[in-house]
């Protein structure tokens, strides 16, 4: 007698042809929205890990104390927001490109990262303001007539649109420079040693950490489902049901994990007050950087205002 014959149903012992018995080839289908969303989720992880790589390069900004970096880049953001001249903003923008180069970032990647999304959306927002219907002024690009009125782009409208777009692009470049050249953990530590409450930082740090954990859980769950999906991916409805079910399952997992994490913290003496190692030291380069940034900001605003 075999060990399997008593408990294992007979069909499990027979080989079955998984494909259609006639051997025909099925239709190809594009991935569902669930697949796309999950691929995006996986991409988020990839990008964050990539940011850690660039933060580890031996470039100019990477060598600075993160506290100094946060404060000076914040100062530059304020300076940029005070500039009212497009040419000066362009100078500031090219300076960020030089900084990216000095920090061993790929300039193409850096430019793409900045220009691909937000300025385009900003552009869409400011586009109507370039028309003479919104901003009165001298028409430089006539577009035709509308109910007997001449319609076109005005020089004043174009100037203000360019001002907003370059200002946004420069500001985002500064923020992207900060995030690409500082690892998340050092950034959090810098914020902690500056002015952000400790509990807030602790929660933020753990949230980031468990975001990864949850994202990989989601990807695992979906992969497991796909591995068992033999036939058609199904309708949008089935995808929606899967998302709802996995959201519920994830909630349960998150809760259990949170409880375990809390226990692990309590086990090591946590009673509500977190402390952390502070390992930052301001060096000569940091002082030079602060002086350089302050001079650049004063010069930028000074020339802009015509002093």
């Amino acid at each position, binding site marked *: 007698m075999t060990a399997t014959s008593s408990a294992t149903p007979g069909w499990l012992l027979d080989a079955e042809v998984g494909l259609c018995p006639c051997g025909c080839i099925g239709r190809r289908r594009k991935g569902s929205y669930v697949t796309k969303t999950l691929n995006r989720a996986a991409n988020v992880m990839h990008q964050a890990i990539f940011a850690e790589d660039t933060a580890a390069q031996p470039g100019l900004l990477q060598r600075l104390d993160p506290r100094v970096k946060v404060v000076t880049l914040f100062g530059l953001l304020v300076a940029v927001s005070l500039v009212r001249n497009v040419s000066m903003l362009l100078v500031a923008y090219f300076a960020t490109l030089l900084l990216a180069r000095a920090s061993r970032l790929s300039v193409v990647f850096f430019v793409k990262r900045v220009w691909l999304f937000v300025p385009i959306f900003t552009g869409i927002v400011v586009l109507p303001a370039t028309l003479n219907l919104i901003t009165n002024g001298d028409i430089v690009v006539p577009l035709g007539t509308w109910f007997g009125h001449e319609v076109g782009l005005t020089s004043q409208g174009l100037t203000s649109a360019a001002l907003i777009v370059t200002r946004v692009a420069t500001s985002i470049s500064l923020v992207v420079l900060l995030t690409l050249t500082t690892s998340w953990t050092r950034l959090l530590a810098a914020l902690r040693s500056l002015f952000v409450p400790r509990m807030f930082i602790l929660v933020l740090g753990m949230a980031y950490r468990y975001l990864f954990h949850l994202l990989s859980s989601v990807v695992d769950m979906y992969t497991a489902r796909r591995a068992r999906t033999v036939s058609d991916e199904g309708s949008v409805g089935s995808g929606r049901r899967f998302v709802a079910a996995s959201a519920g399952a994830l909630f349960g997992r998150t809760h259990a994990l949170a409880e375990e994490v809390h226990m692990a913290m309590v086990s090591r*003496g946590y009673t509500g007050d977190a402390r952390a*190692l502070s390992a930052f030291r301001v060096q000569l380069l940091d002082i030079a950087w602060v002086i350089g940034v302050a001079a650049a900001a004063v010069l930028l605003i000074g020339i802009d205002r015509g002093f």
Partner: protein
Amino acid sequence: MASEALLEVTGLAYAYLGRFPALDDVTLAVDRGERVALLGANGCGKSTLLKILDGLLFPDKGSYRAFAADVTEDSLEDEQFNRGFRSRIGFVFQNSDAQVFSPTVREEIAFGPLTQGMEQTAVAARVADTLGMLDIAELADRAPYQLSGGEKKRVAIASVLVMNPEVLLFDEPTAALDPRTQQWLIELIIELNGAGKTIVLATHDLDSLELLADRCAVFSEGHTIVASGSPREVLADRDLLLAVNLIHDHSHHHGGTIHVHPHTADHHATD
């Protein structure tokens, strides 16, 4: 008068949500310097007992004494007692993901000593020593989510060892580790025990049992301890292991180890 056991639980009962029993009338004493294995099938209450021993859960019935003092929810609210108790018992969780919660490995290892109020420079030195001892210095500035399972386990152990506890609790220490890491961990446990640490571990790894423990407490699926003895005695008692569902009907005991032969038609032909 005989000296009091280091850890002692008497008549413990615990049920999750008051409905799902995890422990029922459990009595166990652990002496200083012992290596005790809690042996049992999945879901028999081993992990729950470890959590009670670490003062993370509190029994519905029964008592727990550690280091000659009662451990209760109330007594752990005393700041001084809490600090003393937490620094003397370390717990390595089964799920390293739960235990490794800080942004970097270095901060993870520093978490315990810092919450215990140790000075920054002393903590930094201890962390460096521990990183070196467990051979994970190159991971110091990595984020926990970038680590492999074995690396995470090392970090979890480092984060407990850095506090230099007298008692180490391990929940399924060898589970889901590759054979090399398993062997490393077994050797580490033996070394720590040799240095005077008391070890309590929950396991169902029968192959490593003789290496891991001097004494076993065997849990039944009724959530109580049904037998106690040396690993050799326990492993030789086939009826006991069968009764507590630790081995399959098809396993055989040869010279201190348990083998499982699949009972297929071929195998039985030669049996």
